[in-house]
């Protein structure tokens, strides 16, 4: 029963995240960037559910709008890794020999890297910004997708439908992108949701370090980076954004885990 519970809770958290992002202006009347210097450092109350920050901005409102940034981070970063990793892995799996060795060798090297450290290097060179951070995070997630796509392609190209397509005169690109990709979709989707939690953690972590989204952006990591200066006097400035990051990451991890157990009977034993 635990596996369906994971899927249910994960779906609920992600749905909530999407709803908050979409309907933020309807849920709250306040502006995430409007300063009110007469009401700074208000502790959590009915007027400010999660308190107000050093400029009197409502933390609850900023967290709601932050859901947009979180979804943006996930979509952009996972999207970029998929676009880069999947074709590489499929080419490696389909064509084999030198192409396979070359692609797998380079992704293996990338895989062993301390991702965050190299993301910091890239961001330092390109300049701190959320986009550069997401670019760096995506690059270091490419090996995960390339390996998975390669292994799937190796299995799927042996299947009758691939051979039938080949016999009917379909070229490698047609076989790869219509027949193999369609059948590889579910495992890739599971991997994407499992990576999404990590994306939220890395992107908000780098924003917290001042390398990603910059204040005053209502991004959760950036909010914590500002709030940490007032840790002793206004703990809620760090408490709520960080709790939201954790719940969002947990939601994606539970969803990915549950989805894998639900769709892939091989994993019913509980193997990670």
């Amino acid at each position, binding site marked *: 029963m635990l596996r369906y519970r994971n899927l249910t809770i994960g779906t609920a958290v992600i749905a909530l995240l999407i709803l908050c992002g979409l309907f933020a202006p309807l849920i709250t009347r306040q502006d995430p960037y409007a300063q009110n210097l007469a009401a700074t450092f208000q502790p959590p109350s009915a007027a400010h559910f999660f308190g107000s920050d050093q400029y009197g901005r409502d933390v609850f409102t900023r967290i709601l709008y932050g859901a947009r940034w979180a979804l943006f981070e996930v979509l952009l970063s996972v999207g970029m890794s998929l676009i880069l990793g999947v074709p590489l892995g499929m080419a490696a799996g389909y064509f084999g020999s030198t192409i396979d060795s070359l692609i797998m060798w380079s992704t293996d090297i990338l895989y062993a890297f301390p*991702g965050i450290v190299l993301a910091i290097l890239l961001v330092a060179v390109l300049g701190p910004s959320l986009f550069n951070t997401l670019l760096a995070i995506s690059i270091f997630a490419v090996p995960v997708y390339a390996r998975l796509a390669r292994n799937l392609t190796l299995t799927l190209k042996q299947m009758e439908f691939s051979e039938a397509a080949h016999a009917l005169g379909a070229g490698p690109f047609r076989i790869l992108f219509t027949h193999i990709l369609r059948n590889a979709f579910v495992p890739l989707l599971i991997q994407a949701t499992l990576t999404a*939690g990590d994306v939220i953690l890395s992107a908000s972590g780098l924003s917290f370090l001042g390398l990603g989204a910059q204040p005053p952006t209502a991004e959760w990591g950036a909010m914590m980076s500002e709030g940490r200066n007032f840790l002793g006097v206004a703990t809620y400035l760090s408490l709520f954004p*960080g709790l939201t990051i954790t719940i969002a990451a947990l939601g994606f991890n539970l969803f990915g885990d549950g989805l894998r157990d639900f769709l892939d009977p091989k994993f019913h034993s*509980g193997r990670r």
Partner: protein
Amino acid sequence: MNSYLARKLLAVPIILLLTSLLIFSAVRLLPGDPARLMAGMQADQATVETVRHRLGFDQPFTIQYTRFLTRALHGDLGNSIRSQQPVAREIAQRLPYTIALTTASFSIAILFGLTFGVLAAIYRGTWFDNALMVSAISGASVANFWIALMAMNFFAVKLGWVPLMGAASWRSYILPSLTLALAPAAVIARMTRGSMLEIIHQDYIRTARAKGLSPAAVYLKHALRNALVPIVTSIGLNFAALLGGAVITETVFNWPGVGRLMIDAVRYRDYATIQGITLVTVFFVVVINLLVDFAVGFLNPRIRFN
């Protein structure tokens, strides 16, 4: 056997060579004038030209890279733009703190991860297993900078049980190493449980039980030893993630390690230092992965002799 180890060993210099090339070109091929970056943003044109000539940026790329590599092999990583000190010396001063922190964290993570993973597998399906797995998936989802800040606020600011920042005594290690260990411990516990569950239903485990071995002997000597290969592999991969987490943890706790040096370097756009730290980090990750490969070869003779 020798060919397996030899192949792994041979890959190390190649990987290091390629990564050094990658890191070296990252700083030079991307937009921006490296000489200006190295000289600092406020430097005047004459200083920039001097730096360009001194660092050899007016030379062709291959010559620059060869020179950089030769120097790096001799332990010269250039001078920090901020402090004008040799980067190698600055890293060497900070490195012991990072090694101490990551070693402490990693030991905690392996100890707790293995213990809880094995227990969860033994008591599969019970409330104990469920509670452990819920904690594990939560542990892997916690933002480590958040838990670090909250722990610091509660145990150091409010209760005053541990020092707030720095690395002055052994008590300073408690919060940073525990918060840093959380995520890898969770991942190792899940991996251990999964790997153990696959082994526990094998025939030879039933045989071991049937011949009257104690549960401890069955689970630890027969099951865990065979379950260890994927676990050790995942531990190796986790080390790279742990180093990344250390950068964040060190910044939160004001830890005098390499990670904080790197963040400071980014703030001052100190490229020589960033480049040096990245090289050293990659070196450590590659060495740890080599050790993991050796351990896997030792644990599973089939890999060695295949």
